């Protein structure tokens, strides 16, 4: 493998990582900060992608589609919070699991009901399509560079919001003791609805951005959900910085594992067996990574005990 290809693959890994972060950002917010296990996060991601596809189909505008994804998912999130989630904060985590699992069923089949069983079309706008040439002669899709930019911007914004603003502090306070923060005069319910809507909106935006280069279809949120959980657990729950680092680690491991492992095994096995073993191991690589991280740091890289 040439150096330039290796560099390109590292870039791909980083890029995939940022994409994962985009998906995980909303989840960290809801899960880490509000302490709510929201399995339906993937569904909100799907809602965003479908809203974007529908609006792009009707208007032809990608910007409008992105706005639609944000609004639709945030609205769905707010409704879900008001109707369901709000009754679950002081319940066991397991009740949250069951309720949000039920929401997945409703969202997925509801979307299929509305949009049919076939994947929808959502493509990147012409202005962002095609490759650009990076220094070093690497050709790289422009749209992916844009995703990296958006991901980093969101990371920074969220970090500021949670760590620095008074709202962020109050949200975190509410996570450890809702009754106490209310006794201090903070309307934590309203705050949580807002946070949930924000997290949902981010998921929806991610769905639209990523959906444009992947397939927009029912069930698209599920694999993402698992990956996003892996990411935030590796990074440490509640830590935006952790989510970013975790996402990059997972992105790199997944990409480089798939690329390098078959080659590594080929050095001492016959090629077809090496491909088979290498690829199976590559499929497991992020889970091996997560297990390894948790064994050495039982609360993730940036998590507090």
């Amino acid at each position: 493998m040439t150096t330039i290809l290796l560099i390109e693959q590292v870039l791909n890994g980083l890029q995939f990582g940022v994409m994962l972060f985009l998906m995980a950002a909303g989840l960290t917010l809801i899960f880490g900060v509000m302490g709510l296990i929201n399995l339906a996060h993937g569904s909100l991601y799907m809602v965003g992608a479908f809203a974007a596809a529908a609006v792009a189909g009707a208007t032809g505008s990608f910007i409008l589609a992105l706005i639609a994804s944000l609004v639709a998912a945030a609205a769905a999130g707010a409704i879900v919070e008001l109707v369901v989630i709000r009754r679950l904060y002081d319940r066991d985590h397991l009740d949250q699991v069951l309720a949000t699992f039920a929401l997945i069923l409703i969202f997925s089949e509801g979307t299929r009901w509305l949009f049919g069983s076939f994947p929808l079309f959502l493509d990147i706008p012409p202005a962002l399509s095609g490759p650009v040439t990076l220094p070093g002669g690497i050709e790289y899709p422009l749209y992916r560079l844009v995703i990296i930019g958006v991901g980093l911007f969101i990371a920074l914004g969220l970090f500021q919001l949670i760590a620095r603003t008074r709202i962020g502090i109050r949200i975190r306070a509410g996570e450890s003791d809702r009754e106490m923060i209310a006794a201090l005069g903070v309307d934590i319910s309203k705050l949580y609805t807002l946070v949930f809507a924000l997290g949902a909106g981010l998921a929806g935006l991610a769905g639209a951005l990523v959906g444009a280069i992947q397939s927009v279809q029912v069930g698209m949120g599920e694999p993402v959900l698992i990956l996003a959980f892996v990411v935030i657990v590796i990074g440490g729950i509640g830590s935006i910085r952790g989510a970013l680092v975790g996402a990059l680690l997972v992105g790199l491991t997944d990409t480089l594992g798939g690329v390098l492992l078959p080659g590594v095994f080929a050095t001492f096995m016959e090629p077809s067996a090496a491909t088979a073993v290498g690829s199976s191991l590559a499929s497991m690589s992020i889970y091996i990574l997560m297990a390894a991280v948790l064994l050495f740091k039982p609360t993730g890289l940036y998590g507090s005990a």
Partner: protein
Amino acid sequence: MSFLDVEGITASYGPSQALFGVDLALEEGEVCALMGRNGMGKTSTIRVICRLLKHSGGSVSLGGQDLGALPPHKAARAGLGLVPEGRRCFPNLTVRENLIAAARPGEWDIARIAELFPRLQERRDQMAASLSGGEQQMLAIGRALMTNPRLLLLDEATEGLAPVVRQEIWAAVRRLKSETGMAIVVVDKSLAELRGIADRAVILERGSTVWSGAMSGVTAAVADQYLGV
């Protein structure tokens, strides 16, 4: 009608009733000691005032406003500052963040709290979870003051504090009372120290007010009868 008016409240935790008729009245600038043995309903009374526990009968009002219908955060904004039993600092927040989370405009701000408790100033960027017990107690008081309350509720606010610090806190309470005219309800186990600051006293037994009057009226005989000392 008094500034704080608690009349005949009854309340239950699920099926078990904890309060059977508590009366308590307090004027601005007054300090009321709420006394009784363990498990007699002092904390429950305070929780009812803060709306953290719903009462099933009786009424609670503050400055003429009925608190009964309000959710806890609205009651708090009506002027309640709570130092809860067991401190309940936000463990995952730093000292500073604990104070900021509670802040509402008024004369109490971080600088003044730092003056009151220099120890907190030293530890301002430490997570509340790793503070010593006494430090957490100071933080809980500081946090309640940051809401700039009209009525301060101190539930065992000096538990676990060193004697010097306790004296400082009582001095601070006296100052609050005379300078700001804040009304204060205080639960504490040291009768001697309460005598030094309280104007009135209410004694609870099995969830009911069994004695109330001026603090000076809590004679040795009364204390022996109701408090067992």
